[in-house]
């Protein structure tokens, strides 16, 4: 059934008003050779049971982390999602992903967002966080825009090559037609040392962007970088693709970052073939009015009861028009709620324990692989739940060989990092058992004979 709310009379009246003869004339701008003149070639309709069977057989062609032994990370992490997350977000009160436009009537939605903002602040040690962004990559690009806006006459942004390649591409896209110069900073030993940054620092630089952990899984020396960047009054932006690391390592805020952005998928969102994600965006108070996106604040109502409002809306597009801090007028409402539920469920201790499990398993596997003949660790910097190994055979061959054993060994680095053609990025989470790791080890070793 098609949903056409207008009657023929309505349509005729509208056409007459704009002076068009018929509906067809509205499409006259589309060239004839771009139009489909025959019906779509679709198979005939199926009965519900047959259709389900068909869809299930199509779905079975996917490799799923539930059946496969997956060591894939690289910005999307296979963490266990407690059943309560799905259960709670399925309540009809929450079941709209959109930020309400008559917000204060939806106190529950606003409180959910407020809790999200609060927990992001606690995790990052920053003063304030917004209601969320589309994903880590777009949050990172918006952070670059904020830094340039704040620095006024500066338009140069330094970006570590160890920032997630997708994030770097997104930054480049956002900045393509703006007067912003992006400069790559090379890495040494898997991290971005201050020595690489220092020669580039001057009064033209608005910000430095580094990953934390970075794409190689390594932990950057943020306090050194912050001190260097601050010596020229620029901002340090940290892009966090795996925020679970913040439950174990010192937070970017504690180490001197000015803007902390990242991806929250690790906290309760499924992998789902790469989306949706949820970006988070946290700043210091000095940048409060430059923050993009929506912001929920806590206040008291007429009866002095705790309540929630959208606040500082004068930054936003519906009020500031072309001078708004961003064109994002929305947030990832339901995904932010998933993150809030996940974090509240684990609590400070639970999250720390989970991070410790990730760290311990990863470092055990890292050591074991480095002991295998022909495998080596190119970087010695500390890692969280991901690391790079170099392999004695071509990565394409290795991956294909392990796929036959239903093992997804990791991400090949050669495409994004020339010079690391034999580099493999391996991720271990609490979902990878000792048995799975041993299976990976013997499969890797098996290839050498």
């Amino acid at each position: 059934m098609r949903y056409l709310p207008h009657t023929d009379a309505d349509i005729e009246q509208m056409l007459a008003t704009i002076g068009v003869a018929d509906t067809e004339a509205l499409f006259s701008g589309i060239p004839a050779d771009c139009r489909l003149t025959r019906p779509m070639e679709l198979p005939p309709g199926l009965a519900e049971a047959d259709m389900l069977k068909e869809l299930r057989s199509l779905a079975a062609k996917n490799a799923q982390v539930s059946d496969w032994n997956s060591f894939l990370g690289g910005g999307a992490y296979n963490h266990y999602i407690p059943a309560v997350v799905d259960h709670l977000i399925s309540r009809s009160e929450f079941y709209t992903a959109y930020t309400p436009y008559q917000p204060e009537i939806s106190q529950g939605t606003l409180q959910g967002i407020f809790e999200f903002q609060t927990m992001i602040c606690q995790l990052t040690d920053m003063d304030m966080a917004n209601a969320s962004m589309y994903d880590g990559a777009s949050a990172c690009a918006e952070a670059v825009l904020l830094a340039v806006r704040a620095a006024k006459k500066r338009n140069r942004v330094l970006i570590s090559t160890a920032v997630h390649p997708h994030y770097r591409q997104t930054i480049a896209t956002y900045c393509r037609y703006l007067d912003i110069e992006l400069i790559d900073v090379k890495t040494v030993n898997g991290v971005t040392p201050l020595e690489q940054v220092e020669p580039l620092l001057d009064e033209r630089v608005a910000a430095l962007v580094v990953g934390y952990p970075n794409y190689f899984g390594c932990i950057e020396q943020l306090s050194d970088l912050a001190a260097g960047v601050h010596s020229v009054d620029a901002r340090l932006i940290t892009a966090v693709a795996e925020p679970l690391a913040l439950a174990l390592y010192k937070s970017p805020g504690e180490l001197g970052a000015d803007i902390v952005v990242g991806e929250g998928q690790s906290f309760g969102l499924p992998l789902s073939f790469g989306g949706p994600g949820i970006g988070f965006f946290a700043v210091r108070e000095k940048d409060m009015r430059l923050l993009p996106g929506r912001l929920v604040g806590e206040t008291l109502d007429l009866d002095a009861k705790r309540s929630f409002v959208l606040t500082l809306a004068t930054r936003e597009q519906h009020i500031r028009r072309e001078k708004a801090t961003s064109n994002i007028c929305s947030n990832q409402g339901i995904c932010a709620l998933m993150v809030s539920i996940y974090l509240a469920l684990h609590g400070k201790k639970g999250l720390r324990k989970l991070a410790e499990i990730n760290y311990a398993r990863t470092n055990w596997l890292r050591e074991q692989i480095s002991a295998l003949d022909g495998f080596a660790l190119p970087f010695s910097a500390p890692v969280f739940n991901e690391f790079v190994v170099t392999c004695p055979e071509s990565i394409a061959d290795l991956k294909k060989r392990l796929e036959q054993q239903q093992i997804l060994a990791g991400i090949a680095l050669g495409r994004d990092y020339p010079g690391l053609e034999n580099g493999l990025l391996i991720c271990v989470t609490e979902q990878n058992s000792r048995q799975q790791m041993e299976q990976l080890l013997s499969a890797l070793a098996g290839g050498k004979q």
Partner: protein
Amino acid sequence: MDFPDELKYTEEHEWVAIEEDVATIGISDFAQSQLGDVVFVELPEVGDDLEAGKPFGVVESVKAVSDIYSPLSGEVVEINEELPDAPEILNTSPYEDGWLIKIRLSNPQELDDLLDATAYQELVADE
């Protein structure tokens, strides 16, 4: 409502006080009363060049956010450092403590385009 005679005014509700080649600029009593409680003021930096008729800053109140237009062209020589921490002085003292910036005029002829207190008061009466 106050319209000091010694000041010049613009249709955008800024006021100007001239001392030799330096102009002090603020927003009028009428402007602050229309805006309501001011919560934030964004000013240019010393050394910035301003062009007459172009926005140079922002005043945000609980009701609205408004650009402030420069009545005259010139270089910013001083900004009111008190404002970021105490934006409410724009409401309590728009012509004294709540001044915004001082600029050195690059085109004094632009002064001829400004309104005197009587003309400005008439303009406000019509709004």
